């Protein structure tokens, strides 16, 4: 039996009086795509920020490929690729310049041309980041998460704010990552259904279910994942949360 790529045990995080994550535990197997699904404020982003070592948990234990995100920060950075929610990059640099910059940080980076092909930005290499559309910026952000040939990839709100066509292109890009372990944060049913092997449903900072998309549907006794989500959390994903710009 192989060691899980990500292990999260009894994770707790609060900001002042607000509980962001409460007693969350799960594992992601090597090569698995696990979705973190929930409404805004469910604790998804806090969870991945804890796993990425950007925040310190109040309690609990995290291991990524056996590494402690805080203690083994340097080592984790070599093997983890992260696409953060609404990240902006150096706005006046071009796509090619940004790719070169991030490639310079890793010992064995992917070739720039391969990365741009993967996210279909080859034709925009000389476009400045500030001149890209939202979808193109998002795709560049994904490419940069993959620059260092990561063994574990975190993708946070992959397609929020993108039009349907751009979403499909991003999804196709992610599907090409099959060899890697992916933790995908989403509040889009379509997205997790299409991309994820298993889905962890978070609500109010707690893990309420963890199963395959089909398993969640069967468990909730519903006909599709959306209904299963409502049955499990008592909440609906509001339309404006489902991938449309706010």
């Amino acid at each position, binding site marked *: 039996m192989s060691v899980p790529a990500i292990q999260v045990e009894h994770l707790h995080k609060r900001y002042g009086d607000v509980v962001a994550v409460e007693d969350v535990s799960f594992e992601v197997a090597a090569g698995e795509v696990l979705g973190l699904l929930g409404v805004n404020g469910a604790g998804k982003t806090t969870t991945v920020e804890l796993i990425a070592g950007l925040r310190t948990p109040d309690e609990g234990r995290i291991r990524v490929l056996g590494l402690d995100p805080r203690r083994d920060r340097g080592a984790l950075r*070599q093997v983890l690729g992260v696409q953060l929610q609404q*990240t902006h990059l150096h706005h006046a640099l071009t796509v090619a310049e940004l790719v070169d*910059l991030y490639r310079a940080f890793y010992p064995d980076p992917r070739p720039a041309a391969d990365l741009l092909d993967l996210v279909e930005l080859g034709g925009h290499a000389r476009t400045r980041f500030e001149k890209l559309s939202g979808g193109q910026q998002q795709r560049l952000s994904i490419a940069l998460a993959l620059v260092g040939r990561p063994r574990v990839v975190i993708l946070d709100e992959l397609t929020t704010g993108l039009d349907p066509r751009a979403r499909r292109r991003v999804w196709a890009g992610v599907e090409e990552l099959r060899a890697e372990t992916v933790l995908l944060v989403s509040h889009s049913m379509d997205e997790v259904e299409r991309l994820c092997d298993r889905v962890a449903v978070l609500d109010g900072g707690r893990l309420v279910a963890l199963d395959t998309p089909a398993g969640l549907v069967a468990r909730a006794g519903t006909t599709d994942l959306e209904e299963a989500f409502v049955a499990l959390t008592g909440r609906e994903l509001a339309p404006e949360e489902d991938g449309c710009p706010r």
Partner: protein
Amino acid sequence: MSEVTVRRPGPRAWATLIRCEAKMVVRDTAGLVVPIALPLLIMAMNASAAGEEMVVNGRSALDVHVLPLVFTIVLASIGIINMPSFLAYYRRAGVLRRLAVTPASPAMVLVAQFVVSLAQAVVGIGAAYAVAVLAFGALPPVDTGVALAVVGLAVAAMYGWGMVVASVAPTPNSAVAIGLIGFFALGAVGGMFGGTAVLPEPVARLGSWLPFGATVEALSAAWAGSPVGASHLVGLALSAVVGAVVATILFRWD
């Protein structure tokens, strides 16, 4: 599974980052006006009259008064206005946060910005000095070594203030606003708008310890070949140290 070799970004990463920061600075055309064009303008306006007025040791008023003021404007505008506005933007936009999840530390961006702004200061001072020498017959400082040392100390002092601005400013816009206010306040008490003799004595004295006035007076002494007042040097060193300490405590990465 955990035997991952930690490799810090090497010289290639540093070179690429510094080149990228330089492109960011050069493409921010408006940001080049104050440190490069304004000092040139001030010098051109004052040079011809000041160049003919001999002050001491064969040095004219251009050498002893105008050049120190112009060089100080270059250093202060870069250190107190431009550099902090970049850092505030990087923090606000999430650039520092993004770099925190790569093998590069966000501190590398700080260092790269220091390097690039230093280059910008060299260009600004070099351009002003070249025009002063070629067009208006300016002479080098009597104590060149002292002048260079003062510039080095002034850079540290201006960055000290700049890092405080970058630490306390919540947004990029407020960084520019705070930087401009700081720049003009230091300039006002340090002789940017005319001699400090017209200021109330305590204000003028305070101004001569703060980075702007201290740099102007110390450079002026180096050009004239007279001893540099210890109070100016101590004032500059204190600005650098206090700025570094305050920034270490207050600077936020996200």
